[in-house]
């Protein structure tokens, strides 16, 4: 899958780890936050931009807590971003919310769990069905 990934300075090390891991799994990665001294607001905004312009199917943002990128990304119309700290949520947010982004906190989630969260997020499909009314509601907001 083609995916957008980005981080602020605190999420940089985990982001680089995940980029290696995910590209080894065959994913194509777009990182437009690299080489820049960004805060979480700018990092999240940059990933939102790539996803909204459909230059990637899904996006991942990493900062220290995941909390800030969640607030920023979800202020954008058509963006549904989960703060993911376990594999179950990463999978369910695709199945039920049709999420197109996740945030990960590098201070909260260790590198091995972060790999598994990303795999769960990327290997799952949206269930559709009755969940569509809720997704329609979310997408009408902002």
């Amino acid at each position: 899958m083609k995916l957008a990934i980005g981080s602020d300075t605190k999420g940089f090390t985990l982001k680089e780890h995940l980029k290696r891991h995910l590209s080894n799994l065959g994913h194509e990665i777009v990182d437009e936050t690299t080489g820049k001294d960004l805060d979480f607001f700018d990092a999240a905004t940059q990933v939102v931009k790539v996803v909204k312009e459909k230059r990637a199917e899904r996006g991942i943002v990493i900062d220290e807590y995941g909390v800030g990128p969640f607030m920023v990304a979800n202020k954008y119309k058509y963006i549904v971003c989960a703060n993911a700290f376990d594999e179950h949520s990463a999978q369910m947010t695709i199945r039920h919310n049709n999420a197109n982004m996740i945030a990960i906190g590098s201070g909260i989630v260790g590198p091995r769990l972060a790999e598994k969260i990303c795999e769960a997020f990327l290997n799952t499909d949206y269930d559709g069905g009755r969940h569509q009314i809720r997704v329609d509601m979310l997408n009408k907001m902002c």
Partner: protein
Amino acid sequence: MKISIGCDHIVTEIKDYIASYLEKKGHEVIDHGTYDKQRTHYPIFGKRAGEKVASGEADLGVVLCGTGVGVTVSANKVKGVRAALVGDMEAARYAKENLNANVIAVGGRIVGIGLIENIIDVFLETEYKPSKEKEEIIKKIDALVTNEEQMNNDHYFDEFLEKWDRGEYPKQ
């Protein structure tokens, strides 16, 4: 404090427990539902609970659904709401102290009741510590939503609910 709460039908009993937990601590709870286990749609309750915080009718909000994601995203899409979805106390503390988060959220199927209590406690007890940098970033977050039409509009989702009632969404 006045606390605005909301949930979907997956976690109604946990929301009811949280409401009584908060009341026992002396807080006034505004419970926006849902009130039973009948299938409903989380954006209705996230939006409503968030709006009461944004408008100042409540001081803070607590929302939850299965993973917490759906209800929190809908609360956060309200202008003036800064919602934090967390699974531990440290992220809850950070959210309040640094981003002045005004809604806290958990997944009722993700986090156990003891930790939920502690997350809410730390969220209510932590004070926002302002600085120039924090104020600037909060201002930028708040400026992202400009939609005034959705605010306090209880009919905003009617088109979808009517479609649902007509059986035009699959029930599975």
